[in-house]
Every structure is written in structure tokens, then in C-alpha cells.
């Protein structure tokens, strides 16, 4: 944890942003979540503008249509259009070394799976959830540990993944999610490069 073991308010906010990405990328959003996302505010910063676009997309989105979009993009019959896994993006195959590295670090953090899901841990939603947990102090991880996790498991591929998703013709709601994801990941990458 940062100075004096107090969670900086900025880190709580970073955690919220990661949590938002995790919940949207982990499953198709319910109508309730869509209406809450529609209330996202923004400002003139790149991230703020991306939020406004996402809020707009959520306002005009319909739960069933988004559910179908999520299925076509990420699940599919056989496979979806996108495989949001670190292994896939870094090696061209699933269940590869990048996944092993994620599992190593999750072990070291003492983080383990809760629930019946069998999803490989290098899924973007799981990685975002871990970052959120570290940022908000649910997992014991100082800023250096967070930077190491980010640089090892997210920075090599996540921005590229979100950029690809943003350009996909089949994505309407998720185009806006991807824009938020790409903008935020780029922001984080720059922030971790600041001297600590």
C-alpha cells in the first residue's frame, strides 16, 4: 500500500475503473447495470469522453441485443470473434506461458478463484478484477507490486486487444467499452512509468 498504508483516493478510483471494465467484459450486462452505466458522467479528458460515449451507448442499448452481441463477440459457436486472453494475444494459442505466469503471480498474491467458473485466469476481465482488488487494498499489494502485475500481464497486450475490439464492425455497445478500456489502459501504462 502507498505511503503510510493509507489507500490514496486516486487508487480507489483506479480500482473502480478496473472494476467497471471487469464487470462489463466478464459477462453481458443486465438491464439494471446498463441503466447505471447510462448515468456515467465524463469531462473533456480522453477518458471522460470515452465515458460519455459509453453512457450514450448504454442509453440506446437493449439488454437482449447486448447479450447477443456479447455472445457473438466473445463466446460464439465454436469460438467468438475475439479471444480476450493474454495467452492468445501474446502467443497465438490459449493456455500458454502467459497464463502460467498469471497463475504464478496470483499464487504469490494469495488470490484464488471463488466460484464454479473455470475461466483461464489470463482473461481480461479477471486481470482487471485483480488490478481493482490491488488498487483498493483488498489484496496486499503495494504500488510496486501493482506495477509489476500490470507490466507483466496487461501492458503487453491489453491496449492492443481493446483497440482491435474498437475497430470491429460487429461491436456496437462493446465498441464503446473498448474505447474506455484502451484509454484507461494507456493512462495506467503512462502512470506506472512515472518515477516511484
Amino acid at each position: 500500500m502507498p505511503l503510510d498504508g493509507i489507500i490514496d483516493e486516486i487508487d480507489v478510483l483506479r480500482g473502480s475503473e478496473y472494476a467497471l471494465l471487469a464487470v462489463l467484459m466478464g459477462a453481458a450486462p443486465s438491464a439494471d447495470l446498463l441503466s447505471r452505466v447510462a448515468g456515467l458522467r465524463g469531462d473533456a479528458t480522453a477518458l471522460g469522453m470515452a465515458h460519455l460515449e459509453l453512457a450514450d451507448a448504454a442509453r440506446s442499448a437493449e439488454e437482449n441485443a447486448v447479450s447477443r452481441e456479447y455472445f457473438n463477440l466473445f463466446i460464439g459457436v465454436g469460438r467468438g470473434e475475439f479471444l480476450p486472453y493474454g495467452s492468445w494475444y501474446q502467443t497465438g494459442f490459449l493456455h500458454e506461458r502467459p497464463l502460467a505466469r498469471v497463475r504464478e503471480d496470483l499464487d504469490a498474491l494469495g488470490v484464488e478463484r471463488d466460484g464454479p467458473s473455470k475461466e483461464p485466469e489470463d482473461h481480461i476481465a479477471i486481470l482487471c478484477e485483480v488490478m481493482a482488488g490491488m488498487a483498493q487494498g483488498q489484496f496486499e499489494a503495494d504500488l510496486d507490486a501493482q506495477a509489476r502485475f500490470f507490466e507483466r500481464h496487461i501492458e503487453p497486450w491489453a491496449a492492443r486487444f481493446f483497440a482491435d475490439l474498437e475497430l470491429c464492425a460487429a461491436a456496437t455497445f462493446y465498441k464503446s467499452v473498448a474505447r474506455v478500456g484502451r484509454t484507461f489502459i494507456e493512462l495506467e501504462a503512462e502512470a506506472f512509468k512515472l518515477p516511484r
Partner: protein
Amino acid sequence: MTESDQKIAKAVVDRRSFFRAGGGVAMAAAAAVLPTQEAEATESQAERTKARYSETDHVKTFYRVNRY
């Protein structure tokens, strides 16, 4: 404060101002979207494995007719 504490404090302030400039307001909006715990399954395990077969009239007719 010691020198290393001062360096840490400066680094924290740098990060804070970086994020404030880059999207602090935006991230605060994200915090408002999510309730504290967002872990609800759409289908419970019991729901997934419950018995769904029921002998309606339609099914009984089918069995009867199959004996002809």
C-alpha cells in the same frame, strides 16, 4: 520526514496530479456506477440441475399413441 519519505510523498503527489489531469473526474463517475459488491450469478447451481421433465397431458397422449 526522511529523504526517502519525501521522495515517496512527491511521487504520490505526482501520480495524483497525473491522474487528476488525465481522468480523475471520469474515474469518480465509474465509482458511482458500481455498487459495493457485484457478484450475482444469473443461474444458481440448483436451477441449472433441477428436474424439468413433467408428464403433461401431451406427453401422456404420446405414450398412449405409441402403443398402437
